């Protein structure tokens, strides 16, 4: 398994009054080695910011983020080859008109020959039950299929770590299960930001994020129970 390390990593942006910074994530130190890591917490608590630190979508204001010995700030390109990122809304992630073309886009960097790239893309689509939709417009897919396609686009490059930021938030129950099962079937290390506590309970380790910091860090059931205890009824 990969090793993800945060060493006093924090994120702050200029506040509305410009005199004080707005802290999005307070200095955080973590050593993550488990295969399935969950992040739960309220909206705006800092979960997505923490997740985005892991492949350089957000840069730490102070401290360091290191993935398998690679500093995210200094070796971003190498880190992004290692860390795939799946967004909440697949519509934002799917940038090519058809399914196969979108997966091919992910492969452009590593597979130069067009015919080989297409074959590999179709193979990846087949793995997620989307081969029949290879030449379909990405806009004609259902929500669940689109999220699976977004995941296929990420996995095409064979990253060591997959970070998924609320990948089931926009999905119905059946598709939530489908996407959840696909994520938990991965061999890769998974960092899952989620509001779905059933999915969170399937993780090996769960961090509860609140008010821009990690408030609980432990086994899934204990962490989810802690989170539930903090939610006003």
């Amino acid at each position, binding site marked *: 398994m990969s090793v993800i390390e945060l060493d006093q990593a924090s994120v702050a942006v200029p506040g509305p009054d410009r005199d004080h910074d707005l802290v999005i994530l307070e200095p955080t130190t973590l050593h993550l080695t488990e295969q399935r890591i969950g992040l739960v917490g309220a909206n705006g608590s800092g979960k997505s910011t923490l997740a985005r630190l892991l*492949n*350089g*979508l957000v840069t730490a204001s102070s401290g360091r983020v290191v993935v398998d010995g690679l500093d995210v700030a200094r070796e*971003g*390109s190498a880190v*992004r*080859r290692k860390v*795939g*990122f799946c*967004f909440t*809304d697949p*519509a*934002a*992630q799917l*940038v*090519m*008109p*058809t399914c196969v*073309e979108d997966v*091919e*886009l*992910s492969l*452009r*960097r590593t597979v130069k020959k*067009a015919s080989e*790239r*297409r074959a590999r893309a179709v193979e990846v689509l087949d793995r997620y039950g989307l081969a029949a939709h290879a*030449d379909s*417009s990405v*806009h*004609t897919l259902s929500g669940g299929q689109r999220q699976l396609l977004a995941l296929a*686009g*990420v996995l095409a*490059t064979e990253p060591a770590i997959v970070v998924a930021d609320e990948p089931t938030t926009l999905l119905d129950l059946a598709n939530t299960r489908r996407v959840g099962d696909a994520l938990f079937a991965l061999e890769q290390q998974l960092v899952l930001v989620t509001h779905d506590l059933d999915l969170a309970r399937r993780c090996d380790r769960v961090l509860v994020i609140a008010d821009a910091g990690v408030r609980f860090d432990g086994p899934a059931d204990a962490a989810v129970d802690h989170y539930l205890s903090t939610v006003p009824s």
Partner: protein
Amino acid sequence: MSSPYLVGVYQPGTTILHRLPVGVKLGALAVFSIVVVVVRSAPYAFVFLAVAVLAALVARTDLRLVARSLRSVLLFAAIFAALQWLLYGPAKATETLVDLLTLALAAMVVSATTPVNAMLDAFIRWIGPLRHVGVDPERVALTIGLAIQALPGTIALAVETRDAARARGLGRHPRAYLTPFVIRVVARAHETGDALHARGIGDD
């Protein structure tokens, strides 16, 4: 599925237009477009439209889909034609309307018969020599490819924004439509940038 989502989307096939090299298709489209714009004649405008329709038939594109997709183009073409009518009379207005539809249809035929990745590969080959003067062909090609594919996404955003304005009883208020539309387009551009960044595209 609403047709705006499918504007410019590749439709697989084995027709002669599908099999032609990308360069030939884009070159022909460029020449055809220049001729359509340069030749100022209403009768010829209909001849050019017939050529574009013939190309669509040869490519076996879904004509119902094309017709529905052209409706949004027709709206803009009608506005321009109305202006031309006021300024220059009915003949010029007819020519403008038909020319715009012809250009849109020809472009749709090329994009419906050419995968975006094939276009990207072609652009990279053509721009390749400029690498020596600091141009990044991959990045330029990706920008062009994204611009091509942004059309259906932008139309989809326009439709969603219009529906949202209507749902709030603000359907006829331009500010209620245009302001959120522009904000959503910019937000989508940011999200697309994040998505490309996350996939490491543009890193090299």
